[in-house]
């Protein structure tokens, strides 16, 4: 636990900027379950998976010290997610007994690593995408009437027929069509917003961050 206590003050110090603090909180919200799930998927016990999650977050939080708020280098989110990605892929490669990019890599190495393309990275990216969808769906769900959400969920995710769901929800099929698309639009927008905030390319981030409140086709 000593790691944690030494991490704390520096983190508080570094995250003076409220946006960064929010970014960090969202990061924890998304990456904790992500790392945990990946660890579980790779056959770790709960306790070990928790440890791994902890360690990844501690290492990322240490990287916060190196964070240099230079607009040319992308966003804080982009920075920490890149580090987390490289860390986890390193772990996965180590677990698969494959040559690592360096489990003990320094933060600098982690951030400067060229994004690897391998089985592990594909696995990670898929899990990451899944996690972002899950996270976004939680958010979006709360923004709609329960019946609107259900119309989307039952038809699109559970793949029930529109007629059946309409009957279940006491709505017309037309209402179901409208509802599910509205939810989908909002979901897409939320996922995109998050993805662009994580993007390493600062222009992408700025292009998306303010403007996608509404999905204009």
């Amino acid at each position, binding site marked *: 636990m000593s790691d944690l206590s030494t991490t704390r003050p520096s983190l508080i110090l570094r995250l003076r900027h409220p946006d960064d603090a929010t970014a960090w909180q969202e990061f924890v919200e998304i990456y904790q379950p992500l790392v945990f799930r990946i660890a579980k998927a790779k056959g770790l016990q709960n306790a070990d998976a928790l440890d791994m999650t902890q360690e990844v977050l501690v290492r990322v939080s240490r990287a916060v010290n190196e964070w240099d708020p230079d607009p040319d280098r992308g966003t804080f989110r982009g920075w920490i997610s890149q580090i987390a990605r490289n860390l986890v892929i390193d772990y996965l490669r180590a677990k698969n007994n494959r040559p690592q990019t360096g489990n003990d890599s320094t933060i600098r190495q982690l951030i400067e690593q060229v994004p690897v393309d391998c089985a592990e990275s594909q696995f990670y990216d898929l899990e990451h995408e899944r996690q972002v969808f899950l996270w976004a769906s939680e958010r979006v769900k709360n923004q709609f009437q329960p019946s609107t959400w259900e119309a989307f969920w039952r038809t699109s995710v559970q793949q029930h027929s529109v007629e059946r769901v309409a009957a279940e929800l006491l709505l017309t099929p037309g209402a179901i069509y409208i509802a599910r698309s509205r939810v*989908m639009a909002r979901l897409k927008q939320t996922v995109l917003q998050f993805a662009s905030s994580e993007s390493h390319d600062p222009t992408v981030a700025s292009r998306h961050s303010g403007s996608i409140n509404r999905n204009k086709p």
Partner: protein
Amino acid sequence: MNVKHYHDFELSNFLLDDSPPANDSALQQHLENCVVCQQQFAELAAAEVWWTKAATHLSTMEQAKIPADIIAQLSNSAAIFVPSSLARPSKPHPIQRAALDCENRRPSLATSTSDTAWQHILDPPTHPEMLGRIDQFEIEGKIGSGGMGIVLKGFDRNLNRAVAIKVLAPHLASNGTARQRFAREAQAAAAVVHPNVVPIYAVKSCETRPYIVMQLVSGHSLQTLVQEKGPLNVKEIVRIGIQVADGLAAAHQQGLIHRDIKPANILIEQDVSRVMITDFGLARATDDAGITQSGWITGTPHYMSPEQSSVENLDCRTDLFSLGGLLYFLATGREPFRGEKPFAVIQKIITEPPISPRELNSDLPAMISDVIERLLEKKPDDRFQSASAVRQWLENYLAYLQQPMSVPRPQRVLTRRRRRNRNWKLTSIVGSAVMLATAAIWFRVSALNVEYPNSASVLAFGSNSAGRGPESSNSLNSGASEFESSSAFLPGLFEDETYFREVEDLDRQISNLEQRVQESVPFAIPNPVVIESSDQVFGEIQDLQSITTRWLEEESLEHDRLQRLLDAQRDQGIQPEDDVPDTSDGQTPNAADFVAEWRKPSGASSEDPTRTSGFE
């Protein structure tokens, strides 16, 4: 069949509309029958791939769900990561804190601990003459109150002894971090067993009423003692100093810093001259509570060390500064740094040397006065380096006071003031010596040169010009040898003296000071609480600035003087000549280059290993 289709933009507008589906009846009806618009509408919401992804990803939601107990564990650790920047107001800077502490001197306590208000924390007493009860402790009454809470006099039924119980103030008890730290620091302090540290019997950190049980010391605090009796005499001061230093040494050995040494925290037993330190490390617990609720924390900034106002990581030497302040108070009856407002006090702590205690109490021996001044040095490095060193010195001095005939007087402590004076004298002596010697060498070398041209520089103090390689020794002409011999001579003298160090030292001080000013100003200005409090704060900031500027000016004048002296000596000692031998880049070497060259291990520059200088 309706062949008319909706326009894309119309459909898009429907996507954005959050109104309940019932309002969209026209579109609803149309969509039910028009497959083209169905598809178009879905496509406008999100492309096909999004629908697929949403379906695949979200359909795993159930499997992906993390068990509740794991979520709890994860979010516990998240609390460690995310915490305070979001959860609680940012920690006030110590300066601000102490300042506000003083200004709002315990308003919250005034209400919460007014005569009877605190009694609600007590359980009903088992004995009719008692006020109340806390667990097995019968409470007889209140001893006092402070920033941390209240101190009660109690009686331990189980062990049949009187105790003092310090109950953490409610506003602190409700703060989890403060409560934990309170318990942790108290536990650490409980491990210090020393006759000069008030023993802690028990620590209870329950949420509603955390408290510490301590030995009940019947007597006064040094604060009351001096307020009632005035300044103490030398022997008393020294005796108390020895004991406090001894208690501190024991705690420091365990890595425990007191952080709030002040007369009010030193208790003196009745009729015995034993003193005991109380409240070890507890000041730290209050750091975690936000300023707004706590009102009064360390209470007085008067004994705070300069580094306490700027550095997060303190070491035990902060206690030594406060010990200096304590002894100052005992010797003079007043605090070393005084100001109408806490800001003024802290500003003085950081920038001004205290008035020598001897000026305030002429009975005070210069030796003690020096010890106090040494403890009150701004830079921790300039103070005594450990509490045990202080104790040792004071013990020697006490022995001398008691038996002046048989015990030697301990060596007088150097304060910065005296050290600097001495250095100046030394410097000027050295300076004149250098000039004389240089002149003499010039003379001799020129003379030698005529007779023994090849050995001149070797003779001249064995500088490693001897190892400089064939061409340089061959090309030794009078100019070169003058240069080399004198430059080799200069560092030799200065290296043992304080000259270069002093210059560096001043540089460092100036940059430290600049840094401190930079650090303290942003904290002083933007906080609205501070600004609202009064216009005087602005005045104080201005005062602070002007004083700092003056201080900076003085320091830089002094620095300039030193620099000029150095330059003068360089000019006199070294006249760079055009035909000076060979530096690699062909530039004229200066003294610093030669110093560097001279200091190099001889092997580094020497081409001829047989001729390395034996001087080192």
